[in-house]
């Protein structure tokens, strides 16, 4: 009973958190909490097979599928707080509370016999008992579910498949397209080339010593201080700057020889 109360509180809290959490990923994780709690409750109720299936299939496969799709659709999707349908929230609350109240009232008023317990049914073990039922009494339903699963798999494949409507472009067409677009046709220079050091924020220098802005991440370029970082380039003229550079190199060599 202790387990029940703990798990009940946890699962209801997690469920409420799930529906009120704005970020979808948090909702999914809270749903995982609910499912794991339910798995524990199944185990408590003499249903070890279902408990494991719950953990493996639901929490392990289905929820992971959810997370996967969330990743594809965009993790950042956040529900806006503004409800567009007038009265939807109030009526949803009324309906939800009313429905819960009705069910609780109904269950509370029902008279239950004492638990029969599953000791007898699980005599051979829970899995054996279930297997006997599934492969005898419910074998037809079981076969039908297999058909359902195959259909679902096929359906998912058909839905997710994207038909190619135009032929695939070959190398030549791709390169023509690249030049037509007017953008830089080849690879961009990487940062730090010919520069004093090759940090990501250090723009490359072109053979004439000028700064290649495109070698940097646009975000860094937008800060507008790329040229300042080449303070050592700021000489009177190009020769002077090179001479300065040579001097600096010689000085470094001398220090190394000491």
């Amino acid at each position, binding site marked *: 009973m202790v387990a029940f109360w703990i798990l009940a509180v946890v699962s209801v809290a997690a469920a409420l958190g799930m529906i009120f959490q704005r970020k979808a990923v948090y909702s999914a994780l809270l749903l995982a909490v609910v499912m794991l709690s339910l798995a524990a409750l199944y185990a408590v109720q003499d249903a070890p097979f279902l408990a494991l299936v719950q953990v493996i299939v*639901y929490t392990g496969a289905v929820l992971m599928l959810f997370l996967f799709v969330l990743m*594809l659709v965009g993790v950042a999707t956040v529900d806006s707080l503004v409800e567009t349908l007038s009265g939807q929230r109030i009526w949803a609350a009324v309906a939800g509370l009313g429905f819960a109240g009705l069910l609780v009232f109904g269950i509370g008023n029902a008279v239950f016999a004492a638990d029969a317990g599953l000791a007898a049914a699980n005599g051979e073990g829970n899995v054996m008992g279930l297997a006997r039922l599934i492969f005898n009494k419910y074998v037809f339903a079981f076969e039908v579910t297999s058909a359902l699963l195959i259909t679902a798999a096929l359906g998912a494949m058909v839905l997710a498949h994207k038909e190619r409507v135009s032929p695939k472009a070959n190398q030549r067409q791709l390169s023509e397209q690249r030049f037509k677009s007017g953008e830089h046709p080849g690879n961009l220079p990487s940062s730090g080339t010919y520069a004093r050091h090759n940090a990501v924020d250090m723009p490359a220098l072109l053979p004439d010593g000028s700064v290649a802005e495109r070698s940097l991440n646009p975000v860094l370029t937008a800060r507008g201080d790329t040229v300042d970082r080449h303070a050592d380039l700021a000489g009177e003229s190009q020769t002077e700057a090179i001479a300065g550079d040579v001097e600096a190199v010689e000085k470094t060599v001398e220090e190394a020889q000491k």
Partner: protein
Amino acid sequence: MSHYLILSALLFSIGAVGVLIRRNAIVVFMCVELMLNATNLAFVSFSKMHGNLDGQVIAFFVMVVAAAEVVVGLAIIMTIFRSRRSSSVDDASLLKY
């Protein structure tokens, strides 16, 4: 034994309210899953109450069907998202007066 059933009812109602108030199709789907899990809890409880395993078998079948449903449902959501760049159920409201 009615505790389990009441817990099941509460979870079911919470799931239903979630379906009604959330707009993200994936979250709505998760709420549906919550409702299915709530019914599974009730089935398992009834199984224990009646002393046979039929309830557990039904719960098992529910899980299978739910898995199939999730696969197809998520595929549909993906297709919709691909064409409309949105996963809000309110955006798919062209079929009206």
